[in-house]
């Protein structure tokens, strides 16, 4: 893929595009663009949480106290090439530790998880601890199913860091952030398919959508952090890390990960629907009628307000309002005490030139994800499959993948027989 032209983009957009392109040339262009930036803090591998997915303590928060994801993301698929023996395991672990030395464990450095698919476990002759992915609703019969052995999720506020970290893992950057890599994944893993990237944060979607020539209505606020225009990740609507941590068995302390990659139709969403309809379909008809949300969700502080009455009314709203909201439907799958089962770390994407979302979610079991996703699909409701059924009119699932996110101690070629 050729490098984007710097003249055609704002600086931030340009950096975004470099992440999307990837590779050593993109990394070089990135470095060239930001000479003299503040030094990236280095890290300490001995001071890390036991769970790979435990990022919350180092994430920034917004003014309401909701945690903010890092801005730039890469999902790097890898195929197992070498033998998963002790020597390889050691090499892989040293690679990850080197990365942890090179960058601070924070959005200013790099946050990463190493995740293993059912294909990996089958390749090493073990019974996978997570199921193979499959279509979960009736409007996704054609989806691709992830089958790379490993997926590394890299995230940082700095596009340069996330690119450099990826290159370091692949053996193409021997001194990321000036710190020597003791090992790389070369010969054990080879890059797989598809590489995915994305971004999330205030203002980024507007910026990127403009670059892509997506028409924006005046109603879409400059500061919206997601392509569909609303804040997301409210504290009350996110599982605490403990809720998504495996609490027994060989992978205790780990989690599972599901990635649903989808394309969006923003034209219908923004040009045909009006703000009232967008609020109603993203949250609930009551949210629209009572004006609970504001332009981008600024009226919501830490809670979406769907759990309880509004979620309980979903089937009724389908009949009497002829329309239901996305959050309203999904909240039906919360625990009885209102705890959501999913820890969502989703982000926007323009991979392939198409507006989309890589919906990445951690949960204790894949069955938790399936349950929430079925509630969100609302196929039990007296509504069409897409029409007025939350945001299903505007999203198109393209692929799914299931992964184990082992605890940090088992992140290098895990095996039950260790």
């Amino acid at each position, binding site marked *: 893929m050729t490098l984007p032209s710097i003249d055609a983009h704002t600086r931030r957009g340009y950096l975004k595009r470099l992440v999307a392109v990837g590779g050593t040339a993109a990394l070089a262009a990135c470095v060239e663009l930001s000479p003299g930036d503040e030094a990236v803090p280095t890290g300490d591998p001995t001071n890390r949480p036991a769970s790979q997915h435990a990022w919350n303590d180092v994430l920034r928060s917004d003014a309401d106290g909701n945690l903010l994801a890092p801005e730039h993301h890469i999902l790097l698929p890898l195929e197992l090439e070498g033998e998963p023996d002790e020597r390889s395991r050691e090499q892989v672990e040293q690679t990850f530790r080197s990365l942890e030395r090179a960058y601070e464990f924070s959005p200013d450095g790099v946050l990463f998880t190493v995740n293993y698919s059912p294909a990996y476990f089958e390749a090493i002759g073990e019974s996978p601890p997570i199921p193979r992915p499959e279509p979960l609703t*009736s*409007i996704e*019969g054609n989806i691709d199913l992830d089958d790379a052995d490993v997926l590394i999720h890299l995230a940082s506020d700095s596009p340069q860091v996330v690119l450099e970290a990826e290159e370091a893992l692949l053996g193409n950057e021997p001194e990321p952030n000036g710190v020597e890599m003791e090992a790389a994944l070369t010969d054990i893993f080879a890059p797989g398919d598809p590489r995915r990237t994305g971004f999330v944060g205030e203002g980024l979607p507007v910026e990127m959508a403009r670059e892509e020539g997506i028409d924006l209505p005046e109603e879409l606020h400059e500061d919206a952090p997601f392509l569909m225009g609303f804040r997301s990740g409210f504290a009350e609507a996110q599982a605490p890390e403990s809720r998504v941590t495996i609490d027994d068995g060989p992978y205790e302390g780990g989690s599972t990960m599901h990635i649903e990659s989808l394309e969006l139709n923003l034209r219908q969403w923004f*040009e*045909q*629907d009006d703000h009232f309809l967008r609020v109603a379909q993203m949250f609930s008809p009551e949210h629209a009628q009572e004006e609970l949300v504001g332009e981008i969700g600024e009226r919501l502080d830490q809670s979406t307000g769907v759990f309880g009455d509004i979620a309980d009314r979903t089937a009724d709203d389908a*009949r009497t309002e002829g329309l239901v909201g996305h959050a309203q439907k999904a909240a039906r799958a919360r625990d009885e005490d209102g705890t959501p089962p999913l820890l969502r770390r989703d982000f926007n994407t323009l991979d392939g030139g198409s507006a989309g979302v890589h919906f990445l979610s951690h949960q204790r079991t894949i069955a938790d994800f399936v349950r929430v996703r079925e509630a969100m699909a609302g196929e039990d409701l007296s*509504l069409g499959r897409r*029409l*007025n059924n939350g945001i299903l009119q505007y999203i198109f699932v393209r692929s799914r993948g299931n992964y184990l996110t082992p605890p940090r101690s088992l992140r290098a070629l895990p095996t039950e027989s260790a």
Partner: protein
Amino acid sequence: MNDDNPSNDGEPTIEHTNSPLSRRALLGASAAATISLAGCLSDEADEADDGGTTDDDAADDGGPEETQSFDELPVVEDPPDKVYKPTHREPFVHLEMVEAGEYMLLPHFTYPHQFWLMSGAEAVEERPTVEDSMHLMVAFWDSETGAILPVDAGAEMVITQDGEQVGEPVAPWPMLAQEMGFHFGDNVAVPDDGTYTVELTMNPIGVRKTGAFEGRFEETVNATFELEYSDQQRQELLANTEFLDEDEWGEPGALEPTDHGDHDHDEHESDDHGGHGDDSHEHGDDDSHEHSDEDGHEHGNDDGHGSHDIPSPSLPPAEEYPGQDLGTHTSGDAAFVVRYLEGTRLADEGENYLLVSPRTPHNRFPLPDMSLSVDGDVEAELVQTLDSDQGHHYGASVTLEPGDEFDLIVESPPQVARHQGYETAFIEMPPMTVEVPDE
């Protein structure tokens, strides 16, 4: 290079180049020529119609999108709260029928135009943008029985050209139009004149299916069709829009559905339906029906009209429904055929069945995506159902006694999107009282 000859064959007889500016110039000139012939003049068309073209002319012209658009077609001011006749009938371009799994699909398109989306009890007008190229529609039916399946199965379309995706994927809206009944469609934009491929995915139908439909329509199926889009053709479609007599505009009533059943290829359709506008072989100025491969208007099997007949989009009249007649009621200008069926497989074990078939008042098109219930001497939520014998209806297992009375309640009106003429009806729908005769 412009060909002034008015009896051109619809193709611009001008050299094509790859430069966008000169393509715009070509379109501006040929569109202007066509429009002036049809007698629908705008100032810009007058200026550009000088028999020749230069780049400067085209730049002044502002491009074909601004020369003539659906916005200039007259609308009915203040339509009644009923099904009403619009000012005009839209000409369609029919594409080849495509068989996909258990479905037969008929894609077609016309110029971009407004439609109304329903959100609860509110109709929201959707006007096309200047980028929109066409209003693309797909009618579909069961290829085995010809039954119409007027429900939202969450279909999806992706437009491609030379293997590259063009624009975003789109879930077309389930819609109702007087000319054609239930279909799904949307205004879509393509960047340029050319040939495009549309990949259509039909998803399983989740609505309750009974009789021979049980277990059918459960697969995801894919179909592709090609369409040739040209701005000139869009202009021609606009220019060929057939208007009703002005004293009919806004009158309660409906355009007659386009009649495909008796259509014979080698003849021009009679004036039953007002002539050229609804001719399924729209050729703009061309009066002779040429069915070559190039223009894509080929009808697959035009001999015995066997399984490739286009079925009627209308439901049977009330008299044809079985069971005890509990009347045909009206609410929000829709007609509700109400029947009580005993000993029917549609009902739960040991119960009988209340069948309600709502339809448009003039063309008897089904009205999907409503929420209906009954309350009174019997209480039940009606379930939208596709039955192989009774077709689309809403039903519930109930047991009624002579003398029973209940209200048939519309909890939410049909959420299906509406073409002009249907956007003021089926919105306010008060309950209807149904009485079971005493005897």
